[in-house]
């Protein structure tokens, strides 16, 4: 899982698939303000995602807040019911399993949550929190459970003698280690990391990321790594999926996305990464998008990005582009764009005005 492992990423394409997502949609009903009249509006949180996650890889999932990253992850983990589409886990279709049927499968897929303060029950001791997976799946009891919990605590760099402490008695980084320990306890095949470091100090972030990397090589874990910090994603991922408004707009091995981003949105997103170099002048090629992300209740027609896209043309507001290799990219690099950005092309910042496209883009 080191930086720049194109060989691994390349072979992963042929590798075996742990998670396969097909045509996944998840809509949430809008809470009506009126008690009498039911609203029929829906938030299109995830709106048609196809995705494969290969065994042993780290798939980064990036995008702005509210683009559906977390909902996609929760749909894969079946914490929410799917509106449409299929999720296959380890060769088994889990799209329509009930909560009860999902329970045995929970051993195999775990989640590390974003908020190390909110994800640990403040009224329970750490030992009992990490012991939960063993208790719930009837794996170990009494002294055996305690021994196993302390092993896991040690594995993630916690002191086993802190077994009887409460979450409030730990720092943010330590709490996140507790979250990692809980997720790791049953040695799952897949761990979904939902922004596992974005609530932590930068120095602590590195520790947690290294811990995750070490655990991955030790236990051959597969990660779906959600983040909005692009440098973190670049550091940990083998492949990266860029999401915008409920759809994947670009999916490629990590260095391809960072070096030859094809989708105008990926370009804008990457150019927004701040440079940690005070001597460097403000990048004149920075793509500044105008306007806000449109409402996911009523997403734009055609390509969802077209009202804000500097390269948009009439076709973009009508045709929803397919996620395919463009401009001679390898099959592993797919982009959903009619007019992808060529290598070396300088993008405008202004959104293109499309004739016949009703409302102004801003």
């Amino acid at each position, binding site marked *: 899982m080191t930086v720049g492992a194109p060989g691994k990423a390349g072979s992963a394409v042929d590798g075996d698939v742990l998670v396969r997502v097909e045509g996944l949609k998840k809509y949430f009903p809008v809470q009506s303000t009126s008690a009498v009249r039911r609203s029929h509006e829906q938030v299109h949180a995830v709106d048609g995602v196809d995705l494969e996650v290969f065994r042993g890889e780290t798939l980064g999932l990036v995008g702005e807040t509210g683009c559906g990253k977390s909902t996609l992850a929760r749909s894969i983990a079946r914490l929410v019911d799917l509106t449409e589409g299929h999720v296959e886990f380890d060769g088994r279709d889990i799209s329509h399993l009930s909560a009860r049927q999902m329970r045995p499968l929970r051993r195999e897929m775990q989640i590390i949550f974003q908020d190390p303060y909110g994800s640990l029950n403040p009224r329970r001791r750490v030992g009992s929190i990490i012991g939960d997976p063993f208790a719930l799946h009837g794996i170990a009891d009494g002294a055996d459970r305690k021994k196993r919990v302390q092993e896991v605590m*040690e594995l993630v*760099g916690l002191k086993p*003698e802190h077994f009887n402490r409460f979450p409030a008695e730990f720092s943010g*980084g330590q709490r996140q280690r507790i979250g990692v320990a809980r997720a790791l306890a049953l040695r799952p095949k897949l761990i979904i990391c939902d922004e596992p470091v974005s609530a932590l100090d930068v120095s602590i972030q590195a520790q947690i990321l290294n811990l995750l990397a070490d655990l991955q090589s030790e236990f051959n874990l597969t990660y779906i790594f959600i983040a909005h910090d692009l440098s973190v994603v670049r550091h940990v991922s083998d492949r990266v999926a860029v999401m915008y408004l409920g759809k994947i707009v670009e999916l490629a091995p990590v260095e391809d996305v960072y070096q030859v981003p094809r989708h105008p949105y990926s370009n804008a997103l990457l150019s927004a990464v701040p440079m940690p170099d005070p001597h460097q002048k403000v990048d004149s090629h920075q793509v500044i998008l105008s306007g806000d992300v449109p409402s996911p209740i009523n997403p734009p027609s055609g390509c969802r990005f077209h009202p804000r896209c500097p390269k948009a043309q009439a076709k973009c507001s009508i045709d929803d582009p397919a996620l395919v290799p463009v401009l001679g990219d390898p099959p592993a690099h797919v982009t959903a764009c009619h007019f992808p950005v060529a290598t070396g092309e300088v993008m405008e910042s202004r959104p293109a005005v499309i004739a016949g496209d009703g409302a102004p883009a801003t």
Partner: protein
Amino acid sequence: MSMSPSDSVAIEDALVASGVPPPEGAAASVIEGRSPWRLAYERLRRDRASLIALAVVVVIILVAIFAPVIASLTGHGVYQQFRDTGLTPDGLPVGPNHQFLLGTDDQGRDILVRIAYGARISLIVGVVATAAEVVLGTVLGLAAGYFGKVVDTVIARIIDIVLSIPFLLFAISLVSISHPSLTIVIVVIAIFGWAAVARVVRGQVLSLREKEYIEAARALGAGPWRIMFIDILPNIVAPIIVYATLLIPVTIVIEASLSYLGVGVPPPTADWGTMISGAQQIYQQAWWYLLFPSLALLITTVAFNIFGDGLRDALDPRAEQLYK
């Protein structure tokens, strides 16, 4: 645990050593975390007003428990009528004197002894009815808040209905169609009292179930019952305890009101409400007959309320507005 940059090295060491706990880890003494209960206890210990209130509550409980001892110390039975010494020649109660410390009632019975016995009724009703309300309200509130949808709609509407019924009128008619007894009083109070508890619990659960640790529990494969009783309940035990402590005096007053209106615990059982009701005929001649039972009721409710307030401050210092 150190947070030094050499941490990743330590982790690698830990990885190598995994499965074999290091000897010093095993030998180290168990580190006991300070539980939220312990912290609350320490906060409560510094609160003088609630400690005094707690002492008063304890005294009232002791008086109730040892009512027969008080009776035998004075030599006056609870139902015993002293027509010679306890009543004036005109048949009026006698005031406080060395024989009857708090005077007698209109039947020549010792008010002190009857107040002590009355404390039993008040506390039994207060505690038992409150316990029933809390259990019923907690279970239904948890179910409504956690399951949501139809379950919530049904339970929330029942809560609304119960809370909108004028309690006293209904209680009077309910008790009067059956034979008045202690059990009936407790059942009637519980039937009308659980809804307020359920509403508080439901509100708490609604906000708690959105917490990430509840989602984490679901991701681990926990079922709804486990989540409700192991993950959510411990987080709302504090407000429930506070609410229960504040509910006890309310229940005691309701019981006294029912008895005052003649639909509570039937005479000749000693009861504060019945005593106050009897006293109001002749309080102009016998002020002690009205004053002392009223004082007993007042002191009890005030003590419970102050203690409940202190408990609230100690258990969840940030949730003050919830009960106001």
